[in-house]
């Protein structure tokens, strides 16, 4: 199985020449062809024409050798991709392509396609696979090196001709997306900054609740330590008791430090980090921040977390933030009027589309139907002194996770906020 390379180069030997030179402009070249060339050269988008016949020959050879899994084959035999990059030629390029690659003239790009894939060799492999699978188009974001050595981000589109068109007219377009990607990165940064700022604001609102959560284990620690000293100062020190108390001191200290750890995670300005998460865990962690408020106000909290949910891909802290925000809104809604007895339901479930969903429902006055469409708008608020950024951030966080967020009124009263995320691919 290791010799096909030579076979391949024999089979494709004839095609492994710069075809452009093998095909000089002829007098009988028809008007259609000339029009096509004129168009190609004048198009404002970077366009490169390649002769993909050598690729077709390689793929044909593999196919007749009985190869069906090209992905595995190419992964195992990197040299095939390298060969193809050497034996396929750019046969034509336009001025926009010359500009994009920093070439003096379009002709300077007429050479083996190798230079297109120097930074992203795997793009060549994926292009070959697309061709093998008979795809008409292949699009991907990749990096290319300009002739001056600078690397830029481009979106590559490969258009494979379909028979009876000739593979020697395979077209590649390159769009410089460096600016677009930079803008997107800036937007992501801005979003992260805003969500960080609202997290800090939320932590501020929840300060007394959080203080209580930390104070509780500290109070237990102090008391247990004193009790230990009392046992030790007796004439017959009860060491078993002291050992037990010391173990509980350690437990409470761990609990306090766990709480501090979560608060610090919420307060930190970390780059969002995606990983597979159990949404139920995130819910339990989020509850920590409002636990005390819920108890202090004797709010009836019901937790309905579905068992066996698939994990979701997400940033733990950001998703916590969304859930805390939902809960804080619920608490505030309950405080607004005597609509209900003070009840919050929070639950997770798999929805009918296979997405992992979370909802928070309160029995407050609900959302004015007029405002339902606007609750996620930035700077929209009905709260006195509210800035109207919380739910807007929630929406952008959920959107960045590829999910959807919904605000609704429950038929039995109260507002219901929910989001759903696709399960993580295993």
């Amino acid at each position, binding site marked *: 199985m290791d010799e096909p390379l030579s076979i391949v180069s024999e089979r494709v030997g004839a095609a492994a020449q710069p075809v452009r030179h093998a095909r000089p402009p002829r007098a009988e070249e028809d008007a259609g062809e000339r029009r096509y060339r004129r168009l190609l050269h004048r198009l404002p988008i970077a366009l490169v024409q390649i002769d993909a016949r050598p690729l077709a020959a390689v793929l044909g050879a593999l196919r007749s050798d009985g190869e069906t899994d090209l992905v595995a084959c190419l992964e195992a035999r990197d040299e095939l991709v390298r060969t193809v990059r050497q034996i396929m030629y750019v046969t034509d390029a336009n001025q926009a392509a010359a500009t994009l690659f920093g070439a003096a003239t379009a002709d300077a790009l007429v050479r083996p396609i190798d230079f297109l894939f120097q930074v992203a060799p795997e793009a060549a492999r994926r292009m070959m696979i697309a061709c093998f699978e008979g795809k008409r188009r292949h699009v991907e974001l990749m990096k290319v090196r300009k002739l001056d050595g600078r690397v830029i981000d481009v979106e590559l589109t490969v258009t494979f001709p379909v028979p009876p068109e000739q593979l020697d007219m395979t077209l590649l377009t390159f769009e410089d997306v460096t600016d677009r990607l930079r803008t997107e990165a800036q937007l992501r940064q801005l979003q992260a900054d805003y969500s960080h700022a609202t997290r800090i604001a939320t932590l501020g609102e929840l300060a*007394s609740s959080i*203080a*209580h959560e930390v*104070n*509780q*284990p*500290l*109070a*237990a620690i*102090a*008391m*247990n330590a*004193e*009790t230990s000293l*009392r*046992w030790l100062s007796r004439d017959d020190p009860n060491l078993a*008791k002291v050992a037990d*108390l010391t173990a*509980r001191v350690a*437990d*409470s200290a761990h*609990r306090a430090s766990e709480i501090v750890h979560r608060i610090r995670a919420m307060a930190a300005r970390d780059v969002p980090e995606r990983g597979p998460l159990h949404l139920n865990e995130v819910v339990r962690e989020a509850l920590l921040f409002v636990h*005390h408020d819920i*108890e*202090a106000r*004797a709010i009836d909290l019901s937790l309905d977390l579905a068992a066996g949910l698939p994990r979701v891909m997400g940033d733990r802290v950001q998703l916590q933030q969304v859930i805390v925000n939902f809960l804080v809104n619920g608490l505030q809604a309950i405080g607004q009027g005597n609509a209900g007895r003070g009840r919050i339901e929070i639950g997770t479930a798999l929805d009918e589309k296979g997405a992992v969903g979370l909802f928070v429902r309160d029995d407050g006055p609900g959302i004015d139907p007029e405002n339902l469409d606007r609750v996620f708008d930035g700077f929209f608020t009905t709260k006195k002194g509210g800035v109207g950024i919380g739910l807007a951030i929630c929406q952008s966080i959920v959107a960045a996770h590829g999910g959807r967020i919904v605000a609704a009124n429950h038929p039995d009263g109260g507002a219901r906020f929910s989001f759903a995320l696709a399960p993580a691919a295993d």
Partner: protein
Amino acid sequence: MPVIAVLDDDAAMRDALRDLLQVAGFTAIPYAGAQAFLADFAPGRFDLLVTDLRMPELGGVELLRRLRAMGANLPAIVVTSSSGPQTKAQALREGAFACLTKPVPGDVLLRCIGSALDRG
């Protein structure tokens, strides 16, 4: 040996209170909530109550009110974390002997218990 009921919904705090009272020579019976305590309550069974104020299902103030309504002459000491002055005042109006804020130094609590028992 005086019998003291200890009410706190936080397990660590409840155990800590129980052990402190034990080392000081009291018999401490811990309860996770007011309902469990009320179910166990009988006149003369306890000499003193040490209770938190913020607890799910039934809060400390309401518990004191019910005990008073039942005619239970049970001295109570409130040990609470972050209840506002209003709630504390309410608890005192409902007959609490004292309101202490967590973390409570052990000797302060024990002194307080001593005087409450003396008066009772």
